[in-house]
């Protein structure tokens, strides 16, 4: 066994929980077969979230508030719903997290096992000595056709994991993979939705044959008895299939980990890691954890918790995240957020949102990283930085040093809820946010409910989609304030 392992892990689950009943009741007239599935909730992202922004939020939870993040030297981002086909998505995450530009960034995609594949890549990177600290983020924002089974099953979330040889809470024992062109579903280029084959075939020829083979290979190679597995993680929408596989491979079926389907849904690439977080938040030393994924074959990873697991906790655990969700029973809001319905946006939405890429690059630290300036002479803090300081009565030239705002405490100076300007989630809340220590930004608010905003109230920064340029397929990102 190597020294390499997981040093930290955290989930991000978006705030809203759509009640499945709201979906099935709306669609009962044309999809009566789905009425029985109208139970529980699924986590849905806000309109301004995608797999990149959710990854940033998950990663911030494990990086903490410190400015210095130079310890991270590789980043693997896994998703099948990356916002860009050709722009380094992990590069956006790196810039938002203000990691060093020397960080090796990789996008891992094209299969629902990409989350576990990214994790294996990170283990190998650290194990080989190439990286001392590697970061993995996995996230999907899953889109499905109206009145489909997928619409009910899918959820949105992200998980971030740091891999290191230091402060390890779960050691990496080994992994196994199978690459098999078993097509349970696919999504061609430029297609919005998956195309799915018959569930019984997927279950019998897919899960029940591929996953046992994977497990047997991994356990045999490492001379580990299946009875030693104390936690078995397998995302699978088919009821009782993980238990059947456990029995088939000699694992105690009672050790199958809950898949969070009732509250969160199936979050795709992220899901095995989402379940792993929930396990590690409640583990004891010496537990052997088996994580499996399914898609284009599958991955299996074996971990063993260390003594440090005893002290491991997250400020907001998976249980907290689930408990803190806000119920949403408005199915139309979900459809609108996901651009699944043609709605009247009004002429104000017609504005050209072309992004000047030259400007974005010149101000990349400010726009993506929320980095401003601090005057080395007066200590005045400002956003964005400028050659001449904003210091009252001291317009010092070229004294600005980079100053990171994203993790600083802030509160609302002034605000309004604007019903006039275009918003996908009206009214449009925005205002001036003042940061403790100095600096302020007039910015959008998000994840706001009526009565949540008032002058003096504390806010936190979140990385979100600023706007879509639908004419050119460009997603513009910036930071927003969330009342806390």
């Amino acid at each position: 066994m190597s020294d390499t392992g997981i040093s930290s892990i955290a989930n991000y689950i978006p705030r809203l929980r759509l009640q499945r009943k709201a979906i099935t009741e709306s669609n009962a007239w044309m999809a009566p077969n789905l009425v029985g599935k109208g139970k529980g909730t699924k986590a849905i992202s806000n309109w301004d979230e995608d797999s990149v922004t959710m990854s940033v939020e998950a990663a911030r939870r494990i990086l903490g508030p410190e400015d210095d993040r130079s310890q991270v030297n590789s980043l693997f981002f896994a998703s099948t719903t990356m916002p860009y086909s050709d722009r380094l998505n992990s590069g956006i995450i790196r810039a938002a997290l203000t990691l060093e530009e020397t960080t090796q960034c990789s996008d891992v995609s094209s299969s629902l096992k990409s989350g576990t594949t990214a994790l294996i890549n990170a283990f190998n990177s650290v194990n080989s000595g190439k990286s001392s600290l590697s970061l993995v983020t996995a996230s999907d924002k899953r889109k499905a056709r109206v009145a489909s089974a997928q619409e009910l099953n899918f959820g949105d979330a992200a998980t971030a994991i740091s891999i290191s040889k230091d402060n390890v809470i779960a050691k990496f024992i080994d992994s196994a993979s199978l690459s098999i062109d078993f097509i349970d579903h696919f999504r061609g280029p430029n297609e919005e939705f998956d195309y799915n084959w018959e569930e019984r075939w997927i279950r019998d020829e897919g899960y029940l044959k591929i996953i046992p083979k994977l497990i047997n290979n991994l356990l045999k190679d490492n001379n580990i008895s299946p009875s030693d597995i104390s936690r078995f993680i397998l995302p699978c929408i088919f009821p009782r299939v993980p238990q059947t596989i456990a029995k088939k491979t000699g694992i105690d079926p009672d050790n199958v980990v809950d898949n969070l389907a009732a509250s969160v849904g199936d979050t795709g690439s992220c899901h095995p890691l989402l379940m792993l977080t929930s396990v590690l938040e409640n583990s004891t030393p010496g537990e052997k954890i088996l994580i499996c994924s399914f898609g284009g074959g599958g991955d299996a990873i074996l971990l063993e918790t260390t003594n440090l697991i005893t002290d491991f906790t997250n400020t907001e655990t998976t249980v907290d995240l689930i408990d803190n969700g806000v119920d949403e029973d408005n199915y139309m809001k979900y459809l609108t957020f996901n651009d699944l319905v043609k709605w009247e946006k009004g002429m104000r939405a017609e504005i050209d949102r072309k992004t000047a890429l030259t400007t974005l690059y010149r101000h990349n630290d400010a726009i993506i990283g929320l980095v401003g300036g601090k005057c080395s002479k007066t200590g005045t803090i400002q956003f964005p930085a400028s050659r001449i300081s904003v210091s009252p009565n001291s317009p010092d030239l070229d004294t600005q040093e980079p100053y990171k705002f994203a993790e600083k405490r802030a509160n609302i100076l002034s605000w309004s809820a604007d019903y006039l300007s275009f918003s996908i989630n009206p009214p449009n809340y925005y205002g001036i946010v003042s940061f403790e220590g100095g600096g302020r930004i007039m910015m959008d608010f998000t994840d706001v409910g009526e009565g949540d905003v008032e002058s003096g109230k504390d806010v936190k920064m979140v990385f979100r989609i600023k706007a879509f340029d639908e004419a050119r397929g460009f997603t513009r990102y910036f930071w927003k304030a969330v009342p806390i």
Partner: protein
Amino acid sequence: MASGIKDKVAIVGMGCSKFGERWDTSPDDLMVEAYVEAMDDAGIEPNQLDAAWFSHHIDDIGSGKGGTPMSIALRLPNISVTRVENYCASGSEAFRGAVYAVAAGAADIAIALGMEKLKDTGYGGLPAANYGTLGPQIGPSGSAPGNFAQLASAYTAKHGVSAEDLKRAIAHVSVKSHANGALNPKAHLQKEVTEEQVMNAPMIAEPLGLFDCCGVSDGAAAAVVTTPEIAKSLGKKDLISVKALQLSVSNGLESQHNSWDGSYFHTVRIAAKKAYAEAGITNPRKEISMMEVHDCFSITELVTMEDLFISEEGNAVNDVMDGFYDSDGQVPCQIDGGLKCFGHPIGASGLRMLYEMYLQLQGKADKRQLSSPSVGLTHNLGGQPANNVCSVAIIGSL
């Protein structure tokens, strides 16, 4: 210190088009309407003009860029036409250019004309502003009411005024302007409203409802200026002269530095102090006869009363509710209806404010005429509370 502009330049002619939804009127026609009235009032011919300044804010609707639209519409005799743009204070900027040219001796007679044709957008309200290539990547995709509405949240937090009391006070600001506008045949909105109507109107940007927002109008206004000596040689008597012209522009302090609390206009206080000094006014609450302020939103007007040092800080709510700024109050404000009811064709508004002061000082304001005003102040603001340009002008009898 500079000697200032006081009494160096006289206004000899002014004109103002009817403001409103002028569906059948082109930008050129609006310019002609204001120009003909101003030139008739001045009693001069086009070839007596030495220079022109043209204010026009939004060039993707209206007449486009440059000085040529004005020169062509008015068939000016190939004199200089300088187009100026300074947000909603553009009209005051055109006036400043013309006045300074005359004061400098570069022109004997100059004309300032502002025009805006806003009702070619296809919807109510203003089109989205252009903030360059960086602004939209950082700033909220908001609107003018959303930006100005923030004054209310900061004002209530600072002064401990309840949201309900402030809402009623700003409602009174609009009720007063509607009452004044009802007496103005050139005003866009000429109907009186009640406080209850204002307070129960649909919300635009909290806490501003529909009646807290000014009219979005088509219109033009113009001023002909010259030296007092030339004015007299033209046979003019009872001259109206420029007493002060000040412009203060934000340098980013409000939007970037935590020393500004969001409840007032930093620039207005600076421009007002300079204007009073230039005009020799020491007690504005007593010495200013009347005002036209930039009431783009009712909350803007209320806050501005304090920033112009007419109301004490934190006391504008009481002054407004006491009727201090009503037509029969001590300092009547928006006697022509203001932006609220006369309307707000952006490039014309600064000149429209001066037009009413000019009429009042000459006793030509018909049903709106105040008794013996001697000093009129105009306050023309562009941008938004956190980032703006503010013009304060004072004119009076020479």
